[in-house]
Structures are given as structure tokens and as C-alpha cells.
């Protein structure tokens, strides 16, 4: 028996223990996804709370014959995209202006942390456009196959492939522009 479906049924009956079960299993992935998509921790926290509120309110619309995670992520995605569109009316495909590179007298600890490859990569990803960040997170962190990715993004397969390629190309470009020669590798 799928624990998500059991917990969703409990939540539908108003039993908040069902919510605790669902949150326990999905909170980390959901927060990571929202943080990558929103690119801001405070916004991600707000969206995280709104997602669970809306999921609990609309649990009656969840089709129990299907897996819970894609439904939850769709709720989160709609909220996040609404928020991003309100905050930045320009296209969500557009990259923000590149930030100035860190100055040599920046906080030494921050510099040391930023030198670590994972952190630097996460930093470069954070500078991409929201839809680029989303596709990279879904592919490499959520580990979705291309077909699942297309379904999650509600786009045809070739579009999902093109988005993935564009996000990777932009990321590489960004890393090459920011890091000293050869260091991004």
C-alpha cells in the first residue's frame, strides 16, 4: 500500500496526522525544488508554507490513483510561477544581469566556502533564469527522466529537451565567465 495515498486519505478526512506523514516524506525535495525555482530562501519558505496550505485545502481534488508527488509539485509550481510573474513581469526565461564578481577583500570565510565546487555551482545555478533553474533541478536533483520532466513541465518532449540544453549551455557560459580559467571544471 502506498503510504502517500493512505496519508492523503487521512488528510481528506481532516486528520492532520496524514499531513505530518506527507510532509515528512516530501518536505526536503519540495523545499529544494522551490528554492531552486524561486532563487531566494525567504520566498522559498513562504511558497513552501503556501504549497502545504493549498495542498491541504484542495486534497479533495487529488486523484488517488496517481502518485502524490507530481500533484504536490504541480501545486508548488503554479504558486511559484504566479509569484515570480508578479515579482518580475519580464519573461521567466530571461537571465538576470550577471552579478559582479566577488572583490578580493570579501569575507574570507565566504570566499573559502564559495571556492568549493558544489557551492560555486549552486551559486551559478542561482544566477540563472527561474525556468532554467527549474529544469536543472528536476533533471539532476529530482533525477527525472526526460519524459517525466516533460510531463512535470507540461510541455512536449522536444521542448523539454531544448529547455534542458539551453539551461546547461547558459550555466556553462556563466561558470566560464565567473570563474578563473579552467577552475569551473
Amino acid at each position, binding site marked *: 500500500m502506498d503510504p502517500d495515498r493512505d496519508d492523503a486519505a487521512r488528510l481528506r478526512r481532516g486528520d492532520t496526522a496524514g499531513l505530518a506523514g506527507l510532509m515528512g516524506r516530501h518536505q526536503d525535495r519540495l523545499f529544494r525544488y522551490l528554492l531552486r525555482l524561486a532563487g531566494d530562501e525567504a520566498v522559498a519558505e513562504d511558497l513552501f508554507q503556501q504549497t502545504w496550505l493549498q495542498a491541504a485545502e484542495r486534497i479533495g481534488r487529488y486523484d488517488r490513483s496517481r502518485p502524490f508527488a507530481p500533484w504536490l509539485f504541480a501545486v508548488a509550481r503554479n504558486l511559484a510561477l504566479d509569484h515570480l510573474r508578479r515579482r518580475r513581469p519580464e519573461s521567466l526565461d530571461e537571465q538576470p544581469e550577471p552579478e559582479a564578481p566577488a572583490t578580493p577583500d570579501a569575507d574570507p570565510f565566504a570566499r573559502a566556502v564559495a571556492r568549493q565546487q*558544489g557551492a560555486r*555551482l549552486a551559486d551559478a545555478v542561482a544566477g540563472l533564469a527561474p525556468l532554467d533553474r527549474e529544469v536543472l533541478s528536476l533533471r539532476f536533483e529530482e533525477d527525472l527522466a526526460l519524459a517525466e520532466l516533460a510531463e512535470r513541465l507540461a510541455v512536449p518532449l522536444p521542448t523539454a529537451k531544448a529547455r534542458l*540544453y539551453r539551461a*546547461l549551455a547558459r*550555466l556553462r557560459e556563466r561558470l566560464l565567465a565567473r570563474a578563473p580559467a579552467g577552475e569551473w571544471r
Partner: protein
Amino acid sequence: MSAHVTELLALAAAGALGPGEARRVEEHVRECAACAAEAAEWRRLAEGLGRMPPPRPSRALVARTLEAVEERLAEQSERAWNRAALGFAVAFAWTMAVVSWLLLDLLTGALALRLDRPVGPTAAWYAAYVIAGWLTAGVAAALLGRRTPEEGRIA
């Protein structure tokens, strides 16, 4: 040597190529040092993306969220109960009005007469009075019902 496959190298590293394209990349990379080097770079980037530090929600955020959802569910349940109670009260009041009308007629002996003849002016006024009263109450209930969700949204 086959044509360069530069455009496909990123997607190959991301595991997003179909079997035919993947084979084409593999065959080309075997014989082209430049593409092989670039493919290795893309692979390192893809591996790095899978190893980015995973952010986690704080315990405080999770606790706050659970509390907010519990509150919202309690409010929802209270609103549903109020709606059910209001519906019951309306149905009960309507039933009482109709039954009392029939009982009044029955007790005064007017029911038998009323069944034999068309509705008289007194009964028509009484019916109009009852209907007007309930229409007013219905409009008031509808307006109140509209106001409650608005208050909920503001909160």
C-alpha cells in the same frame, strides 16, 4: 571521421538523448579528441549538478507550516459545520412555517373549506408575508455568506 556532435554533448551528459543519438555521440567521441574532451567537461558539470549542497527546510519552518495548516483545516471544518447548521435551521424554519399554517387551518376548521374553494385574500396576504420574510432572510444570509470568505482571504 563523422561530423562533430557538439550540440548533443550536453544532452548526452544529462542522459537526455534517445538511443540513436546516444550511439552517434559515442561513436564520434571515440574517434574525435576535441569532442571527447568536451564530453568529459559536460559530464563533470552534470555530476556536479547532482552533488550540489541539498538545502533543507528548517525545523521551525516545518513546525510553523504544520501549525498553519492545522489552523486552516480547523477553520474549514468550522465553516462547514456552520453551513450545515444554517441549512438545517432554514429547513426547520420553513417546515415549521408550513406545518403551523396547515395546523392553524386544521384547528380553525378552515382547511376543509380551503380545499373546496380558491385561495382567499387573507391566506394570500399571509403567504405573501411569509415569502417576503424568508426572501429577506435569504438575501441577508447570502450577503453574510459572501462576506465570510472575503474576511478569510484578508486574514
